[in-house]
């Protein structure tokens, strides 16, 4: 087995079907084929629009970029089922990000290396895939929001 294949095998999404892991990753939502409403996480079995009885959905990629609606951090280790990455807890930041096309706010962790002092409301961020936690067999990855270097400020 080549190192690359091993790496690919070790890295696995912490949850199936929520995001892509390609070079330009995006969140995977879905669209009700009856009323056109977009949902994230994906809707299944029933459309949550009270005016719609739709039950069929097509997968859709959400916008990869959005603007910070608000942000915070976790300075104490969250309780289980949160799994810390290392024995010593390292604080991390989170942001609720507004996607303009979908008119939807999506909560996620902020990419590694950025703290609340690097963030402001209205700042442009982009979806990335980063490590969340590991066990003996896998490094589990999840979507995170990363400040865009060339991003504009709303």
């Amino acid at each position, binding site marked *: 087995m080549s190192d690359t294949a091993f790496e690919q095998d070790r890295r696995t999404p*912490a*949850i199936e079907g929520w995001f892509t892991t390609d070079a330009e990753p995006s969140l995977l939502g879905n669209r009700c084929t009856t*009323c056109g*409403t*977009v*949902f*994230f*996480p994906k809707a299944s079995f029933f459309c*949550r*629009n*009270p*005016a719609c009885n739709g039950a069929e959905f097509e997968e859709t990629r959400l916008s990869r970029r959005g603007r910070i*609606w*608000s*942000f*915070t*951090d*976790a*300075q*104490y280790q*969250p*309780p*289980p*089922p*949160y*799994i810390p990455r290392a024995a010593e807890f390292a604080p*991390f930041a*989170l942001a*609720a990000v507004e996607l303009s*096309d*979908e*008119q*939807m*706010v*999506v*909560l*996620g*962790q902020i990419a590694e290396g950025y703290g*609340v002092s690097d963030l*402001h*409301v*209205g700042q442009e961020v982009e979806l990335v895939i980063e490590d*969340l936690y590991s066990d003996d067999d896998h490094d589990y990855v*999840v979507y995170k929001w990363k400040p865009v270097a060339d991003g504009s400020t709303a």
Partner: protein
Amino acid sequence: MSDVVVAGVGMHPWGKWGRNFVEYGIVAARAALADAGVDYRDVQFVSGADTVRNGYPGYVAGATFAQALGWTGARVASSYAACASGATALEVARAEILAGRCDVALVVGADTTPKGFLAPTAGERPDDPDWLRFRLLGATNPTYFALYARRRMALYGATERDFAEVRAKNARHGLENPNARYRKDFSVDDILASPMVADPLRLVEICATSDGGAAVVLTSADYAVKQGVARPVKVRAVSTVTPAFPQTVIEMPHFATDSGAAAGWRAGGGEVTAFKDSITLAAYEEAGLGPEDLSLAEVYDLSSALELDWYEHIGLCKAGEAERMLHDGDTTIGGRIPVNPSGGLACFGEAVPAQALAQVCEVTWQLRGQAGARQVDGATVGITANQGLFGHGSSVILSR
């Protein structure tokens, strides 16, 4: 509608007592019955607010309290609506009285809580967003409170000092409340020296988890007259509304909002009222009263900053004006419309199924003029506001 009255209220003090939740519930229930002058054997309906942290007896709290008080064959209900459980249990009891099925109902909520962050039910449950938000994001309850706080800072120029001033006000309000767990005066500087938990919120600004119990005796107005209940308080409204689609404000425990690009729920579209605004709007509509009629409000200050949001959601002022109200002393006892005269969650910590009932106890004492050092002079109308995880609204309006 004023066909239902609060005949009696009672509480077991909040704390970290580490005993069985049923004990707190029974202490509160007996206090409420004594307060009403009602014999337990005359109670025709027992309405329990559930706790999910104490095993099966907690899931069927109505029957658990009824058995502990002694089986009488009374009808029973058990309600779970997270932080709104108490209001839901109250509404179930009120509906029984309004429907003419009974005259006397006892509503009880009590909890024993673990230390630290409220965490989801154990096990591997990836279909539950409340479980998944901890696993995938490490998003605790304070994460959401902090998002709202930071948003206020960005939109309205609120500061960490403003939030600390809310906490200091509530500390002063609760100082002499015998049912409060924390009775300690905090200066703004003390609060700003407290460790940061979820920026911009500090440890003493985030609601703790507590043990406690609260109970309310509801009766028909006729029964109260017949029994000679002293100073009955009218139940003018109970709002238990859900959000309206699309819900475009991020709410615990969700990962995302609905898409605001979606058509609204009404045929023909039109504006959708934000959830927190809709909770008390429905209560005002039912009571035929408005924010201008209020003497006091008990709102769910899960964080110091969240209390400011509530000033606006319950209509005390326009968006962005809450800090001014706070600084003008409007919401302090002695001001125009005192908020959380009990000391609020800041002084109580949260005993989930008891909390919405504790708010009703406080408003009742205030309207009867029995609130001691924290009395709001001449109080005639009071409102409670609260919200249960996943979309349970909770608001009660009481009047003299």
